[in-house]
């Protein structure tokens, strides 16, 4: 191996190492009084959470039923991830800042310490800040441990008929909608973690877009885990009624702590006739340190149901955080002519383990789906794409295109591709392509010959590698995501 090449490879590895773990800038914690449920999980805890939220009886029953089912289930073991056995009795299932006890009516009543936290995170909770600074306005629901602390632009959204509030509020204010749709996309006992979430979920976001309405601004939820030894179990329910459109963003961070923390969320999307949902995630939970200590266990079930004809659901995710990721945002293409999309960048470094992908379930006629997955492995990480494309008997003329590419940086990481492609209908056209490689020496050399140094060259190439996905992110997120990917755009723009 030539010396130049070795230098390049070392620089590549160093460069990528600087992306995550070492420079996790969201790793601070907030010192705030919290009210917690006692440690452990049993019916009483569930009753406690339900009571805390002043829930109706049916929802408590729903939770208890989920809990009963959870007790009979076992943790899935098929993913390519390894982590020590989780002691579910050694966790707190509810934690809320004390000051949130009385449901503050406005931001003025919110504990300044909390507000400072969001300021440090760069999340605008004051509407005037948003108005002043950014051209595109984003409404934010900020979830801190187990509760929503604030939701912005509610009035303006309400004027358009859009409901955007915390899940707890939705249960109180819009019980019919919640009851109608909750659990209809992700059944309680879909898997071990959904059953757990259904039993103990504490808060999350609720969105309803009325018929023929284009949501006037981007909606976003910002999740923050703060308390140690606390699991976060939020639940998002988003309904786009006939002919509506919404773009929804989700971001997540957590403090640096030496112990692992559990995050088991459920996201349900329902798109009715002609509706379109665009759901974007930048997942930046604390990934653990270079030695693999700490970090979030991110066991998430996200699923969208294109329930009626011509609906479209598009998932875009940038996964850079978490110690272990187990996540498969999926689409059920139930209506005719429905469209499902999944665009993903998953970056693993140090000891991170990622097993992520999607499911596209084609049930209706003329349904189409598209999967673009880019996995980058560095350090000692392991990165698996796991995806299923399934065409059912009656799904005439289904189309799928899948492209999953893996890039390996350094020789101590690994990349895996596990696609399941199934059809029972001959008119389906399913195409799947996958590659695994490292950055090509020829590409590097070419860039260097044109005057780029190795670091710039790597940035450029990795950026290009991810471009097909980055371009699907809303502008506000694309910038953050590009920073996260650790690539300066210098040289590729202007």
């Amino acid at each position, binding site marked *: 191996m030539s010396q130049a090449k070795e230098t390049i490879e070392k620089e590549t590895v160093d460069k990528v190492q600087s992306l995550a773990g070492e420079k996790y800038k969201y790793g601070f914690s907030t010192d705030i009084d919290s009210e917690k449920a006692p440690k452990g999980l049993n019916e009483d805890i569930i009753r406690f959470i339900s009571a805390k939220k002043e829930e109706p009886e049916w929802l408590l029953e729903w939770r208890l039923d989920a809990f009963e089912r959870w007790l009979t289930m076992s943790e899935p073991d098929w993913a390519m991830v390894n982590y020590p056995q989780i002691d579910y009795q050694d966790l707190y299932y509810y934690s809320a800042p004390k000051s949130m006890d009385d449901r503050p009516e406005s931001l003025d009543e919110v504990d300044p310490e909390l507000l400072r936290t969001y300021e440090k995170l760069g999340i605008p909770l004051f509407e005037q800040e948003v108005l002043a600074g950014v051209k595109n306005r984003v409404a934010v629901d900020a979830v801190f441990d187990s509760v929503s602390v604030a939701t912005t632009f509610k009035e303006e959204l309400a004027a358009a008929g859009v409901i955007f509030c915390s899940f707890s509020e939705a249960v109180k204010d819009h019980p019919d909608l919640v009851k109608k749709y909750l659990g209809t996309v992700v059944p309680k006992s879909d898997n071990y973690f959904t059953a757990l979430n259904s039993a103990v979920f504490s808060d999350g976001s609720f969105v309803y877009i009325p018929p023929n309405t284009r949501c006037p601004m981007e909606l976003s939820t910002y999740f923050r885990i703060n308390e140690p030894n606390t699991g976060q179990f939020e639940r998002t329910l988003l309904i786009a009624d006939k002919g509506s459109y919404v773009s929804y963003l989700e971001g997540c961070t957590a403090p640096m702590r030496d112990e692992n923390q559990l995050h088991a969320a459920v996201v349900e999307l329902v798109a009715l006739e002609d509706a379109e949902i665009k759901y974007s995630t930048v997942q930046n939970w604390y990934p653990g340190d270079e030695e693999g200590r700490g970090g979030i266990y991110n066991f998430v079930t996200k699923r969208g149901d294109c329930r009626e004809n011509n609906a479209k659901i598009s998932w875009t995710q940038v996964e850079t955080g978490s110690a272990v990721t187990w996540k498969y945002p999926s689409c059920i293409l139930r209506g005719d002519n429905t469209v499902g999309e999944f665009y993903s960048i998953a970056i693993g470094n140090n000891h991170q383990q990622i097993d992520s992908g999607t499911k596209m379930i084609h049930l209706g006629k003329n349904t189409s789906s598209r999967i673009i997955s880019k996995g980058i492995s560095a350090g000692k990480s392991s990165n698996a794409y796991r995806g299923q494309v399934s065409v059912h008997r009656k799904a005439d003329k289904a189309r799928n295109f899948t492209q999953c590419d893996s890039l390996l940086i350094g020789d101590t990481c*690994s990349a895996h591709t596990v696609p399941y*492609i199934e059809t029972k209908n*001959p008119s*389906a056209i*399913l195409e*799947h392509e996958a*590659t*695994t490689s490292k950055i090509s020496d020829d590409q590097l050399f070419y860039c260097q010959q044109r005057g780029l140094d190795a670091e710039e060259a790597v940035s450029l190439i990795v950026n290009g590698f991810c471009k097909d996905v980055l371009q699907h992110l809303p502008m506000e997120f694309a910038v953050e995501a590009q920073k996260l990917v650790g690539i300066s755009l210098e040289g590729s723009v202007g």
Partner: protein
Amino acid sequence: MEAMSSFNSLFNSMQQEAKDIFAAQGWPNKRNEDWHYTDLSARLPASFQNQPLELSEDVPLENLTCGVDDATQLTFINGLLSDVEDLPEGLTIDALIAHPELVKQSDDDMTDPLLYSNLAHLETGIVIDVTGVIDRPLEIHFHNTAAEEASFVRIIFRLAAGASLTLLESHSGWGHTQLVSDIYQAEDSMLRHLRLHQAEDTQVSLLLNRVSLDAQAHYHNVAVSLSGGLGRLETRVTFNAPGSHAGLATALLSGGKQHIDVTTRLNHLSPDTTSDTVARTILDDEACGIFQGKVIVHEDAQRVEATQKSDALMLSTEAMMNVKPELEIYADDVACAHGSAIGEIDHEALFFLRSRGIGETAARVMLVEGFIAEILGRLDDFAAGATLQENLSKRVETYLKKSA
């Protein structure tokens, strides 16, 4: 004599262990990831009578052969080796029972259902040693004469350094056939292996091929399945040293209620090794086709190139295809890719051919033949390759005329 009986007792104890495991574990179900699409527990009896049938006088062998004149013939009827001709120089056959250490070596993983079930019921085991360059192909036929027959055979091939052989293996008849072929190839050896599966529509074939390659050893496999009931054609290759290469090409033509599962697992342990896998599946009637291909590149196995392509053509509305092409990569300087495409006959191509005066049926046959031409084309380098291609093309045509 004493040595012989101690071999026997070692063998017997190993077989007893396998029987115990089979009794306890039985056949795998779909919760076993390797058997996700082929649930044997739901399809196979929990035990076999396994009383070898009387050998009938006239088994119509010409139906089974690949039609090569100068081939050396070995024939297994109902699991028993019935016929050994004069063997060419450089090729010897011995009974496996005289080599229990070889079974031990090959049964290192007793959790594997194909291994423990084979050993538990084993009727015939042979060891074939190839020490030179053999020009005449070796033809091995497996044929069961009755539906109640279950036959269990193990063959161990050992190719010495520099040895080469063309092996023609065919399966036909009724009942249940389970074959484990363990192939050890020393450096610079070459094995060309045709596997033809053309059995009756109730027949079960579980065929496991395990290949171990030393430096510069090459293994070329062409598998063609034309009929049968339930089939698992599994090939596992281990690349132990640089320069080793495997090419696996499979053509599945399935109809009726056939369930055919092609599974490949390529284990690149060594750097500088290469593999290419191509599978073409054609499904008619209510047939179910499966392709599971896995490429594993181990740590430090740099500069591995592995490509995998699986395409399927669906001819009927009742057919079903499942594909699972996996990559598991632990080294960075690699070029691995897989591609998969599933669809029906290309309507544009069909129109093009018809606009040139070719009738619809003939045009369909032409497109389907074209679809698997690459697989049969790989027989070019085989001993008697032209004869094999001609012979197989005829059989393919018979299948297509039925389907088109």
